[in-house]
């Protein structure tokens, strides 16, 4: 009997799909071997940062929020900024794993696991902030509709309650989506390892064996999960944007906010994806799985969303001028030329202008430049939220109440802590679970056949 080389799909060369199924399994499982010293140093750094944040939080709980730089009328500042920042980061993951899945775009397979993990951990981080930033952290659960002896329910008209539902739904669904996608891969790992690890992975694989029945329901369910996650991801940041848009604060009160925030979220998310993947693929030696092709596509997405942002910024200013609303006009004038001009321009340059560099193929495919740009994006998007929140609050209706705020150690402490918390989980995940989706890559690599040709597609 003769074995003919399997016939490769047309996008194979771009994806460098030259390995066999066995290679894929081997390479991916290889990423789970004992990590290097560099890894441990990174992990240590992350944990250290997290502890800084934890300490700051404890001080805030002990003395009150006064330690942070709040300066009425600026009642929200760095914490909410960081909250929105992390929620935004989350979006790229779901976009790639769910939306691109529905679009059947081939380049998603190699990167989606990593981005989805990023999503889950980013949302986990974001979820902490509503608790951190409130005045009486120990009763945050009053925001949940649970039956209580006071006969009281939360106020569902409040955007903050929408947030509670949106964020918790988003966290649940994206976590389940991640776990669901992992099951077959965990099973694959289970069959490759020995001893206690075999037992652990065995439990986690939930008895997966890849029988025809399991696949039959699995692939259907995965499709529907993707179908549900798609509107969800679009809604979540819309809801977050309504925290601001549904208020009457000049500079917040804009109908453009929902699309504007979603675009920004995806933009920032992909920025973070780039920041994470570029070093990761090297560290895990999977350059042949995550290739220039992927980065090229990611950059194009970045370019698209960045341009949408550019439009949104321009439109905000146009509307402020066109509305003839003196409050809006003052706010936006001061955003660019007021005491916080530096923040305003940081946001515009980092987001609107830097993203435009990606028109050039050379820059898109050069990982170094891409990495630098991704850093700019992260900074720019954090400042976007900072500007929207702080600069709008610092000068609204009654001039007498105007004031500016300066962040303090307590603000920076929590911000650092959030990065530590996120990094901690991401690093642990990268070493414990297949960061590249084994089964989906295999799906794209045709199995060997006895007869040449005869492919079903």
């Amino acid at each position: 009997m003769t074995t003919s080389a399997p016939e490769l799909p047309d996008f194979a060369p771009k994806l460098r799909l030259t390995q066999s199924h066995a290679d894929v399994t081997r390479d991916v499982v290889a990423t789970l071997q004992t990590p290097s010293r560099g890894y441990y140093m990174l992990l240590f750094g992350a944990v250290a940062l997290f502890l800084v944040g934890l300490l700051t939080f404890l001080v805030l709980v002990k003395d009150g929020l006064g330690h942070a730089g709040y300066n009425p009328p600026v009642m929200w500042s760095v914490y909410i900024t960081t909250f929105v920042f992390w929620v935004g980061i989350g979006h790229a993951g779901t976009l790639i794993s769910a939306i691109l899945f529905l679009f059947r775009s081939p380049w998603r397979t190699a990167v989606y696991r990593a981005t989805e993990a990023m999503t889950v951990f980013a949302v986990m981080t974001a979820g902490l902030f509503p608790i951190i930033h409130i005045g009486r952290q120990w009763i945050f659960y009053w925001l949940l509709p649970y039956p209580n002896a006071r006969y009281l329910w939360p106020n569902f008209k409040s955007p903050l309650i929408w947030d509670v539902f949106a964020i918790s739904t988003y966290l649940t669904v994206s976590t389940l989506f991640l776990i669901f996608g992992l099951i077959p891969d965990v099973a694959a790992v289970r069959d490759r390892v020995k001893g206690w690890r075999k037992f652990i992975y065995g439990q986690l694989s939930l008895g997966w064996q890849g029988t025809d029945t399991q696949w039959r329901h699995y692939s259907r369910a995965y499709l529907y999960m993707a179908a549900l996650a798609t509107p969800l991801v679009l809604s979540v940041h819309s809801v977050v944007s309504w925290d601001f848009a549904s208020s009457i604060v000049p500079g917040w009160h804009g109908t453009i906010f929902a699309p504007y925030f979603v675009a920004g979220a995806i933009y920032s998310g992909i920025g973070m994806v780039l920041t994470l993947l570029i070093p990761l693929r090297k560290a895990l030696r999977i350059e042949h799985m995550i290739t220039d092709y992927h980065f090229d596509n990611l950059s194009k997405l970045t370019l698209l969303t960045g341009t949408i942002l550019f439009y949104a910024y321009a439109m905000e200013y146009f509307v402020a001028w066109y509305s003839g609303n003196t409050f809006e006009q003052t706010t936006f004038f001061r955003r660019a030329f007021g005491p916080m001009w530096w923040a305003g321009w940081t946001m515009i340059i980092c987001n609107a202008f830097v993203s435009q560099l990606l028109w050039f193929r050379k820059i898109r495919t050069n990982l170094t430049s891409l990495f630098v740009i991704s850093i700019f994006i992260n900074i720019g998007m954090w400042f976007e939220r900072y500007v929207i929140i702080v600069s709008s609050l610092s000068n609204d209706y009654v001039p007498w109440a105007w004031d500016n705020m300066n962040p303090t150690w307590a603000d920076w402490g929590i911000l650092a802590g959030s990065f530590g918390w996120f990094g901690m989980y991401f690093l642990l995940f990268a070493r414990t679970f297949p960061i590249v989706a084994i089964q989906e890559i295999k799906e794209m690599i045709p199995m060997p056949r006895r007869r040449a040709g005869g492919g079903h597609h």
Partner: protein
Amino acid sequence: MTRRLALFVGGAAVAGIAGVMAFGAPSRAQQAGPAVADSIASTYLAASDTADLRGPRQPIFFRHDLHAGQFKMQCQYCHYSVNVSPEPGIPSVETCMGCHAIVAGSDSGGRAEIRKLRQAWSEKKPIEWVRVHFLPRHVHFPHQVHVGAMGPNACATCHGDVSRMPQVFKVNNVNNMGWCISCHVERQVTRDCTACHY
């Protein structure tokens, strides 16, 4: 094959059901328990017995069951400001002495307690009663209005049948907001927050 899968499902199912039940049956504030647990037929009680009685031990074993129960004294006689003020008013030692300058007590236990009272009076020391019912500081409960609105046995509604308590104890969880609300809902009176919280 997929036993673990099954466990997973089971877990999810149980959690789900629990959740549903939680929503289905909101736990209401516990209703008033039996008005009086240990009311004692005999008036014969020594201070030494107070430890076994419900409720905190008081510096002087003042018997509500005798004063309000046997002697049928009006609550307002001692709690003088209850229908004019948010505060019910705790009787001044002078008020007690009004009778106990003469009344010395029928039994040895009683006499001992009354002696304490007289001593306090002669030393010009007010008596520090241990508080039984109190609300958080952010709640304002106007006694005068409630007494006016709820008529003769208004007191018992919250404090239970004090006239059968040798030593006063907390019958109802009055510092639980649910206690107030359930009553306000029943009687269809205001549930405005600033009726009590300001």
